[in-house]
């Protein structure tokens, strides 16, 4: 089994440990990972803000970079949604670019989905030793349309088992929204406050959040408030629970 790693720009820049954990887990389950270094951004900021012609070259570039990979795996739902839901419309039907983008959209998976759907991994065996007593989970909005809430919820339930504490309003946006967070910081702040109050209600000591944007937002809010709650990506949780060695991130 072989897969290309689409690291996404936020994870590349801010969360290299998540990338390292993904690679460690994928290798553990017998998958060979390739990381093409020409990759940059999926163009989502441009697309979302009404600049599709600025997004198109980036989508096309990714499609070409990954054209020879059997599968592509990424840590982020929103970058996947960009490619899977909006990539095709940026190109003329019948064009070579469109064909490549369609192929990428088809073979692009989120990390956990790749484990379960492609590598046929049993999630109940992935986290034998949990680093926390009570684990909760935030559903990233951009999963909508690519991973239904119920599917994502069920995966986490299987992975965590009895220590899983569902988050109230788990599918409500945390207030990130890309440029929105800095553009409408007061509204973003109110949304984040509501998310944090839901988190407090769970009494959890660990939060699983697979979206780098949501994580920056939620973790940033927790840190400002000095709230002791650890935030991890599913890949980090599995790597740690399976005792896989991760490189020291300098």
């Amino acid at each position: 089994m072989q897969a290309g790693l689409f690291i996404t720009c936020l994870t590349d820049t801010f969360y290299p440990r998540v990338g390292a954990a993904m690679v460690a887990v994928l290798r553990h389950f017998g998958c060979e990972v390739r990381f093409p270094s020409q990759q940059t951004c999926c163009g989502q900021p441009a697309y979302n803000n009404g600049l599709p012609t600025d997004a198109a070259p980036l989508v096309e570039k990714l499609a070409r970079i990954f054209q020879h990979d059997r599968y592509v795996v990424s840590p982020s739902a929103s970058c996947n949604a960009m490619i899977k839901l909006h990539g095709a419309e940026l190109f003329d039907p019948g064009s070579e670019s469109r064909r490549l983008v369609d192929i990428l959209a088809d073979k692009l998976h989120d990390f956990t989905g790749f484990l379960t759907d492609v590598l046929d991994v049993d999630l109940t065996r992935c986290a034998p030793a949990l680093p926390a007593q009570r684990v909760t989970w935030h559903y990233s909005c951009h999963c909508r349309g690519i991973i239904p809430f119920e599917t994502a919820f069920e995966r986490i339930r299987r992975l965590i088992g009895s220590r899983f504490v569902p988050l109230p309003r788990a599918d409500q946006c945390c207030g990130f929204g890309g440029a929105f967070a800095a553009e409408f910081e007061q509204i973003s702040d109110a949304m984040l406050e509501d998310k944090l109050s839901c988190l407090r209600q769970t009494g959890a000591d660990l939060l699983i959040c697979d979206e780098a944007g949501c994580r920056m937002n939620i973790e940033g809010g927790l840190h400002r408030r000095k709230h002791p709650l650890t935030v991890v990506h599913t890949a980090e949780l599995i790597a740690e629970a399976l005792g896989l060695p991760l490189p020291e991130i300098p």
Partner: protein
Amino acid sequence: MTVLPTFRQRAAEALADQRLRLAILDATTQRDAKRRAAWRDLPDVQALRLLARQIKDHTLDNLDHYLNQFIDNLRRLGVEIHLASSADDANAAVVAIARQFHCTDAVKAKSMLTEETHLNRALLDAGINVVETDLGEFLLQLDDDRPSHLTCPAVHKDLDACAETFARKLDVPFVADPHALVAIARKTMRDKFRSATLAITGVNCAVAESGTIVLVMNEGNGRFCTLAPRVHVAMMGLEKIVPSLADAAVMLKLLGRSATAQRLTVDTHFITGPRRDGELDGASHMHVVIVDAGRSDILAGTHRHVLRCIRCAACLNICPVYRSVGGHAYGGVYPGPIGKLLTPLLAGAPDAETLPHASTLCGACYEACPVMIDIPQLLIEMRRDQAARRRGPRWKPRLIRWAMWLARSPRRFVLTQRIVRRLLRPRSADEWISRAPPPLAGWTRAQRDLPAPPPKSFRQLWKEGRI
């Protein structure tokens, strides 16, 4: 009531009001939970949503045909029709009808369209008294306030505020008891129903095949409005048409459940023409004002799907932005996610072009919409329109274009990563930044720190063979 000039100012004002925030969060969360339960109560809500979408799209694609059929049927029934191309025309038509019948007192049932056209102001200017008879609207009228929600217009007022308004405006003792307040309102309204000769209502569905107008109500006031006064004027946007009664039934199934978690509203009126000979009640003169006011333009443009909207407010109740700022912050008649589209397109508001940007595009509204309006996608379309016309925010498109240009070359991208790291790391303590530089300054102005990028990116670690 004055409206602050910018969306941000209005939002800030709302956010500073803790009582308002709690009231809105509580009301919307409960309503959303009930709506979800009511949807689960249906055997296959997704199939029904698809059907409703199909009915709406089919009707909008053939609007001339169904409008003509509706108008022909109204004529046959003896209903007078007024076609209004603008809000002013619509108001003028109602004023003319009132004058024709020498009506000086009107009763009115809740209608968002009449809010959009500012009908009450036009009537008062023409010397015609008008009383809102839905409890929420009645309360707002007393206070010269505006609705902040599509289906519960006074959601921004708590019980004490309602009691206080009644005491001040109706000269009654302050009683913070909902039953007592309803009794007071009822007594006040009964007199109005007796004396009014003109009733004004909106329309929830207009059935082309029969010329029937459908009204959904919960407070019994709709019954008084449509049965007692001599003249009934129903005002409708031209998008309210459905081809058949069977189609109206689909809409009703979804409307009640999505708006108020009801299978059907308490009163659902099917009014087919004025009072006939031998009938005991109902208006003897019935008028329907069909309003365009920008809708044809929307139909011809890229946002036509907003015309599917049935004003159920499910998108407001689920929206985390609405839950935070409430309805008045939007500045116009239509708040919430759908308001971010309808306000710039239809009704206007100060700083309306900011509205489509005040969204995280989280998609909750699309999930809750019974007629499947892809609101996030339409917001993106609107941002696209603005960018093409060089309207809307100025710095954002420039900054993003520049960032995308940087990302088009891996070399430039890596260089940018390095610069970002160099800029951010010195500002950090314990790998966190509490005051970020522009354009990220807003990030840390909120109660939120920014993580410092680690010394090495994933790609560097990979290149060094450490992963």
